[in-house]
């Protein structure tokens, strides 16, 4: 590298220094020039003044994105290109021990068939053991991952065509309640501001999984999932799965989760409300 010490820093060099992209071997050179050149210092200050909280300001644009419509168009594009064949498993554990979930694409293929009514059994594909491998212990969160993936395929359009009619919902809740061994009157699972749209009896790993789908006029689909997998009581906790917000808890041997695009704080409020309503 040539001797650049006599070269005056350019505005490109100044920007690089401001952004932490100046080569390490030029830092001292820059400091030296700034120390002795008032004009350069003034320019440096001007460029520094040109900085803003850009990522904060642009963060608001992310919130303004029309997510429901974007997801619909993606779903449409995916549906026009179904995966041709089953693929090699890309499943296992990373070094840190964190789970590597089977690709959503496979789940989506199976669930698309289910939503189209093509499958007789309302069984969500098992995440582990998909390719013959079974761990001795199923991860406790596995059912939540499967359920969240299923819910992630819902769009507002999926639910908005369903008329608001309590009678069929009551019947469905009765059937679900029998399967889960719980009383589920409509009043116990109602949520303020949301329309109850669909109640489904599913299964995961051979155990009953209820899914109660609501529609929020602003944030789209929300699902309350109840899994009779046998679990110790636990207080509500938050997480994110498949880009959705989740609040989950366990009580009386059943595991519950609320999952959707609604803000986590609202899900937490609903979780508290449901725990109160369901013990009445």
């Amino acid at each position, binding site marked *: 590298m040539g001797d650049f010490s006599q070269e*005056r820093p*350019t*505005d*490109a060099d*100044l*920007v*690089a220094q*401001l*952004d932490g*992209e100046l080569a390490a071997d030029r830092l001292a050179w820059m400091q030296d020039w700034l120390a002795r050149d008032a*004009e350069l210092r*003034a*320019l440096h*200050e*001007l*460029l*520094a*003044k*040109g*900085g*803003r*909280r*850009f*990522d*904060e*300001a*642009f963060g*608001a*644009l*992310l*919130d*303004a*994105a*029309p*997510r429901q*419509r*974007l*997801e619909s*168009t*993606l779903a449409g*594009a*995916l549906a026009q*290109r179904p*995966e*041709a*064949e089953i*693929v*090699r498993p*890309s499943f296992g554990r990373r070094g840190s021990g964190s789970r590597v979930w089977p*690709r*959503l*694409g*496979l789940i*989506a293929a199976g669930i698309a068939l289910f939503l189209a009514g093509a499958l007789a059994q309302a069984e969500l594909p098992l995440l582990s053991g998909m390719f013959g491998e079974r761990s001795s212990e199923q991860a406790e969160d596995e059912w939540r991952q499967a359920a969240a993936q299923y819910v*992630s395929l819902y769009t507002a359009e999926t639910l908005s065509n369903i008329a608001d009619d309590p009678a069929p919902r009551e019947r469905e809740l009765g059937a679900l309640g029998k399967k889960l061994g719980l009383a589920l009157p409509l009043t116990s699972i109602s949520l303020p501001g949301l329309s109850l749209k669909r109640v489904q009896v599913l299964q995961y790993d051979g155990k009953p999984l209820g899914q109660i789908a609501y529609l929020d006029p602003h944030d789209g689909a929300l699902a309350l999932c109840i899994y009779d997998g046998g679990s110790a009581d636990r207080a509500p906790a938050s997480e994110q799965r*498949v*880009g959705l917000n989740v609040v989950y808890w366990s009580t009386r041997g059943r595991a519950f989760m609320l999952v959707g695009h609604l803000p986590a704080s609202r899900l937490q409020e609903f979780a508290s409300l449901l725990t109160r309503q369901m013990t009445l």
Partner: protein
Amino acid sequence: MTDEGQLEVRAGLAAHLARLWRYGLLLSGRRDAAEDLVQATCVRALERSGQFMAGSRLDRWLFSILRSIWLNELRARRIRQGEGIVDAETHLVFDGLKQVETNILARQVLTQVQALPEAQRETLFLVYVEGLAYREAAQLLEVPIGTVMSRLAAARESLGRLSAGAIDAPARGNE
């Protein structure tokens, strides 16, 4: 026969929709065009998913697809139809700004950035909002890294003069 990379594209698209829309909004200045760009990007990404290298940055790959569609298709069409783009240095007005819920300061930043010339605006967005390194931005924009730097400097200089109490700075030399 599907493979690792194709599945990654199919599964990964959903997570990047909002950021793609935002990029489309920054490029076009219009919400409807941004949606069109996202849709076209999804279709193109799925068509080309076999080219995606599993484990590499899906977001960068999607951004380059969106950009290419904007430059080669949407933008070109708008120029031909005379829809408000005159040349490479046109300043765009941000049509959806009023609908964005944000504070006054953030709105001011957005307005100031949208007022920058196209090339500076996009470079600033990629580096200071999306966090690309200079080299990554240079690759995506298909320009030399020095061009990235001088665009950022020009943008900062404009914005710096807008700040209250901006000092008199010398004319830029060393082009």
